[in-house]
């Protein structure tokens, strides 16, 4: 009895087929330009195509399929100032909104399709993400890394581009009445920037707020379900509305100082970044002609 009597549905095969479908979609939308850009991506992969953190170009391309569709067809993303992103290590710091972290995905697509040279952005995911089946694997293969300071420093020292949202879920899950008002910033990103002497690129995303205007956030229910938030949006289901996105990249900011300075000293530097992003958001909102059309 060394053959199992019943052949379980091979998850690997289903996953593989799905992956190929999504890759085809990516190349249909991205065309020769995408192939060219993927070729010039600098990755530290082994003979199996995986980098030490588990990123796999095969999965990155598959993830790119639906994301590129969202980017081009659904959110019709416009990018401004991406040429300001420096080629080496950098911390991309952005405002965060829209209930679903699609703003992060759109920034990543922009960096892959339009930055020079093309960059595979690594973003820092919550520490409980590795406890989720499938999600954990998919995120890891797509280049997302658990948000520990050690991981972040290591990636910056490898000259990678890291995307951070210092507002965290405070920004992501805010209600519509507080749209485009930046929530409190965490300080972690600034300490990491100082420790690795990495420039900070401020980013303002316009349009993500309107993809899921949350009327209320049911906090007691969120606590009960142990979720960060339970926003009630017009679509109820987690389906975003097709708002127009514009992503503004600002001038890189360089900070000097010791990474283990007091909170008070750190706060000043953090506020400098926050107010830069807030004013970029303001300009972006003034320039915007139409929200959905």
């Amino acid at each position, binding site marked *: 009895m*060394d053959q*199992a009597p019943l052949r*379980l549905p*091979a*998850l*690997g095969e289903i996953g593989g087929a799905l992956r190929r479908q999504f890759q085809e979609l990516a190349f249909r939308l991205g065309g020769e330009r995408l192939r060219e850009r993927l070729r010039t991506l600098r990755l530290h992969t*082994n*003979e*199996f195509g*995986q980098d*030490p*953190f*588990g990123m*796999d170009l095969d999965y990155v391309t598959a993830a790119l399929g639906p994301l590129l569709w969202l980017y081009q067809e659904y959110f019709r993303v416009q990018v401004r100032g991406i040429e300001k992103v420096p080629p080496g290590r950098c911390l991309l710091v952005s405002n965060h909104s829209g209930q679903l972290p699609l703003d992060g995905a759109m920034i990543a697509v922009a960096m892959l399709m339009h930055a020079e040279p093309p960059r595979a952005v690594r973003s820092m995911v919550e*520490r*409980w*993400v*590795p*406890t*989720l*089946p*499938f*999600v*954990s*694997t998919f995120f*890891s*293969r797509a280049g997302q*890394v*658990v948000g*520990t300071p*050690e*991981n972040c420093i*290591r990636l910056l020292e490898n000259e990678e581009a890291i995307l951070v949202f210092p507002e965290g879920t405070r920004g992501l899950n805010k209600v519509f009445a507080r749209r485009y008002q930046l929530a409190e910033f965490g300080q972690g990103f600034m300490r990491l920037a100082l420790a690795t002497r990495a420039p900070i690129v401020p980013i303002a995303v316009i349009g993500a707020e309107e993809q899921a205007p949350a009327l209320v956030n049911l906090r007691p229910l969120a606590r009960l379900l142990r979720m960060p938030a339970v926003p009630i949006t017009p679509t109820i289901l987690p389906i975003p509305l097709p708002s127009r996105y514009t992503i503004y990249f600002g001038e890189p900011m360089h900070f000097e100082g010791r990474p283990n300075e007091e909170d008070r000293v750190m706060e000043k530097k953090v506020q400098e970044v926050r107010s830069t992003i807030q004013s970029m958001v303001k300009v972006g909102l003034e320039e915007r002609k139409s929200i959905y059309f």
Partner: protein
Amino acid sequence: MSSEKPAIAITGICGNLGQVLAKLLHKREERIVGIDRRLFPGKPKDLEFHQVDIRKRKAEEIFRKGDIGALIHMGIMHDPRMTAEEHHHFNVLGTAKALEYCARYGVEKLVVLSSANVYGPHPANPNFLTEDAPLMASARFGDIRDLVEVDILAQSFLWKHPEVETVILRPVHIVGPTIQNAPSRYLRLRRPWTLMGFDPMVQLIHVEDACRAMIEALRPGLRGVFNVVGPGEVSLSTIFKELGTNPVPVPHPIARPLLDRLFRLRVSNFPPGELDHIQFQGTVDGSRFVKETGFRPKYDLRETIWAALR
């Protein structure tokens, strides 16, 4: 006798790992003194061997008169079927004795074989644990707290006895054709379980590379705690794809209680605590050892993956 160069004592020499190490050292014409409570079947004639329990008085006698220059301590057992008490007695007390003899009889070099498992796999781990990360393995897998204690004993010895050059090695999962540890046995399974939706990056090291690292650690001047990494990181699913194995994905909420039952019924020889290794990240940074010794694994990723089977 005194004209000969000082010997290298090896505890646990009869284990499969010990035999590979003995062979490598023997080829280099080192004088070896083997210590183990088990039999040594294929022992080379010119190899000095004492079948004795390291905790016994007779073991001390070996150190007292043996002119031992270095000790490689790997007499640490991992048998999932032995009780925690037996493990503790043999591993912790045995290590304490071995350390005591080193200090008392002027052994200049001590290499303790610990393991990267002492950190323990955990969802919030950074992808590359460095040597100063806390040893959390027994938080979720209590049965291996003796291994953590062995490491900590060796660490405090390192500080208390600066006259003994102590090196603690924490290699990643050692795999090899003769090796009987959990990772090697797992890779040999025809229908291994995986946890559905989980595919952590893992690190393997070929048994010969692990032994070469221990020999490297003998070099004069080297002291401290070092992770030892093989040819790099690879996801569990990639390993099985390479080996042509079809794993059985089991949903994690039922895998743990099920394996617990199977282990108790002696159907499986994997304690449920091992499941963390195929669910969460426990990979380490080996750069400190590389920087200080220039250590490079001889076997590449593909060869190392196949090493468990061939």
